[in-house]
């Protein structure tokens, strides 16, 4: 596959395009509510109406507004696109009938709503646009052009330099400068190196990586190949959690197609560079999202972390230097190479460049996937775009970062969403899960929910996490059952401090964060739960 081949494929794809495209979302959310049946019904209706030469029905990835699925986007040349919501297979005939002058009762979404208009699609630019099962579709959207440029026009150092200048930071949650990580692996001398994509998205309520893998798998693969070229690796692994069978299936298809097209394997794009990718499937452990536990799992060992340092860049998979990045981080690489570091650095804020994909869930009117520039105020995300809490309720807090993160209370909703500002409030950006809570949410219960999760997912290797999360969970339960004293509250805080500072890995180190964050902003709720005789006269009685 050379540049000429890529451009020719792109050309033939675009030429074959018919005037009307019906894009049917086939990502996990819409699929689970009959999205596939809708597409099949539309296929049939188009054929029966004799519109095959005018209308094409495309199965695409995530169309963003998950709560209104199954979604079908109708794009006709020269006309405004129409988003059909809650489409059912029975609606296919009337929907197709609109192209012959008929009408349909299927509800239309408002594409002018800020939920759509304020999104900036960098990572998700192909999601909901291309058919994820066809490499030709990806190529028609400039796919693999970045790889070609990197392999033929840039040296590995230049690739790393571009990524560094772009300001891209790890999207898995920690926000480590990606260029620096690549440079470290590149500079570690070794005969063998690995590249790993961490697709073990484990935060409850997070589905960003899942959507990217289901909707645009080639993008992630292209990012990995470019990374491997930059750091000097010849073998890559994508570690996907077993709970994402559709993502695994789409990745398998994509890898096979890329191999056939000479984009993977020996002589990538007929260059001297070799790179192969294999999938490794997880087995249901959140802790295997931690990089050293992930590598242990790939090696066939018990998925337990080991202390860092040494970091994977020095001692990684099978003892070799390893570059490990998140799905979204890799998905940012092709556009950065294609459009340049300066373009990317022009989006976002001074220290947090680019965009971030968020999965909006919880007590929010518009549940779904969004991508916004870094620095967008949280209020814009949850109120303007998300439509606020349903049934006229008030937003009380927004949880970011899952079980490792914290709550941002309503009073701080004007905070710009970026790494530093969220950390300053005691939370983290995390991988992108955003859980919205309303005035009826019990924040102590929220803290206990996340502690239960950490307790269940603790690998058991180190005592602070293994035994500490158990005791913390029990203490929170004692509070909620109103059997706790002020001394219990003190013990809760001391245990949080100890677990945070002595745990071996990030799971234990961040497990206390939801407790600490809710204690910081909603301390009164904890105090209200203390037994009456244990409260001082200055504290008010429980109001429930």
């Amino acid at each position: 596959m050379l540049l000429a081949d890529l451009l020719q494929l792109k050309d033939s794809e675009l030429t074959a395009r018919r005037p009307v495209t019906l894009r049917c979302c086939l990502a996990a959310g819409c699929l689970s509510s009959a999205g596939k049946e809708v597409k099949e019904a539309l296929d049939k209706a188009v054929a029966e109406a004799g519109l095959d030469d005018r209308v094409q029905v495309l199965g695409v990835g995530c169309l963003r507004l998950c709560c209104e699925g199954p979604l079908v986007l109708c794009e006709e040349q020269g006309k405004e696109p129409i988003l059909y919501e809650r489409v059912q297979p029975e609606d296919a005939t009337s929907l197709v009938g609109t192209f012959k002058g008929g009408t349909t009762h299927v509800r239309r979404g408002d594409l002018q709503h800020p939920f759509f208009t304020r999104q900036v699609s960098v990572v998700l630019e192909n999601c909901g646009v291309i058919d994820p099962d066809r490499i030709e579709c990806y190529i028609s959207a400039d796919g693999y052009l970045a790889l070609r440029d990197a392999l033929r026009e840039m040296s590995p150092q230049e690739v790393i330099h571009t990524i560094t200048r772009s300001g891209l930071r790890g999207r898995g949650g920690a926000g480590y400068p990606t260029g620096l990580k690549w440079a470290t692996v590149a500079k570690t001398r070794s005969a063998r190196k690995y590249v790993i994509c961490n697709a073990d998205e484990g935060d409850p309520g997070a589905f960003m990586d899942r959507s990217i893998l289901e909707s645009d798998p080639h993008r992630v693969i292209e990012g990995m190949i470019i990374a491997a070229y930059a750091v000097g690796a010849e073998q890559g692994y994508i570690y996907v959690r077993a709970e994402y069978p559709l993502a695994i299936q789409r990745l398998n298809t994509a890898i096979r197609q890329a191999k056939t097209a000479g984009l993977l394997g020996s002589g990538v794009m007929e260059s001297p560079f070799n790179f192969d990718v294999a999938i490794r499937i997880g087995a249901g452990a959140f802790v295997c999202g931690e990089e050293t536990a992930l590598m242990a799992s790939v090696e066939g060992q018990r998925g337990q972390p080991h202390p860092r340092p040494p970091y994977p860049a020095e001692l990684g998979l099978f003892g070799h230097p390893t570059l490990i990045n998140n799905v979204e981080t890799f998905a940012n690489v092709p556009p950065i190479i294609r459009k340049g570091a300066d373009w990317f650095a022009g989006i976002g804020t001074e220290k947090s460049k680019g965009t971030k994909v968020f999965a909006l869930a919880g007590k929010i009117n518009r549940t779904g996937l969004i991508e916004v520039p870094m620095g967008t105020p949280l209020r814009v995300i949850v109120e303007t775009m998300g439509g606020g809490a349903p049934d006229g309720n008030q937003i009380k807090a927004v949880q970011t970062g899952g079980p490792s993160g914290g709550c941002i209370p309503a009073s701080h909703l004007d905070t710009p969403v970026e790494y530093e500002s969220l950390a300053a409030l005691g939370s983290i950006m995390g991988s992108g899960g955003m859980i919205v809570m309303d005035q009826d949410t019990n924040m102590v219960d929220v803290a206990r929910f996340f502690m239960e999760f950490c307790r269940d997912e603790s690998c058991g290797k180190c005592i602070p996490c293994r035994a500490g999360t158990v005791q913390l969970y029990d203490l929170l339960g004692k509070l909620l059952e109103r059997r706790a004293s002020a001394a219990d509250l003190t013990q809760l805080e001391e245990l949080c401090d100890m677990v945070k500072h002595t745990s071996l890995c990030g799971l234990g180190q961040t497990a206390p964060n939801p407790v600490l964050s809710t204690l910081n902003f909603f301390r009164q709720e904890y105090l209200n739960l203390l037994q009456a005789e244990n409260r001082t006269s200055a504290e008010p009685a429980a109001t429930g």
Partner: protein
Amino acid sequence: MAPLQSISFMAAKTLTIDGELISAEEDQSVLEAARDNDLHIPTLCHLGGVMAVGACRMCLVEVEGSPRLLSACTTRVAEGMVVHTNSERLRKYRRMILELLFAERNHVCAVCVSNGQCELQTLAMNHGMDHVRYPYRHPAFDVDLSHPRYGLDPHRCILCTRCVRACWHVEGAGTLNVAGRGDASRIITDLNQPWADSETCTSCGKCVQACPTGALFFQGSAVGEMQRDRSRLEYIVTARERKQWIV
């Protein structure tokens, strides 16, 4: 100017531990360097001769310049490193870890074969643990006495995995493993079978020698009678790898 020659020998390192300047071999851990210089850092999951895992967190030390506490057993020495091993904060954390351990399973010294010879007990005494602040969980486990010579009592296990490491890396049998996750973790033999049914166990007893508490013991030992020689494993490994026989 001549380019830097590649160094083919391992330079010694000089570092400071608790205000004292000491020297160490380049690839030694902070723990090894400290012990070579008779500086004490408490440990539980460390066992001479098998690889360090940094699991118990007892050997955590403060290293100037690092925002995080580091486990001395897995941290390599660095030139000019300044280490503090015994601050009030570290002592507080160690005490809390010990209390969590005692509350986690059923460690009843009065009826235990390792009473008086137990590393957990000794550490608890050294850290002034005269009471436990956390509610005892009282889990119920099955004791495995199927093996003719040895016994495994999970109530006394602290999941340090010294037995697992000794079995895999010193004996090479691979009988012992950890199953389950979090506080449902447990030490198992082979595919979670009774020890007597294990096809890989060589009955070498290295796991029993490795165990810091009374979880693994010789059958027939009465309370406080469990004598073991924990340095035997280190002896074997040093002989094997360095051809040195420690007398």
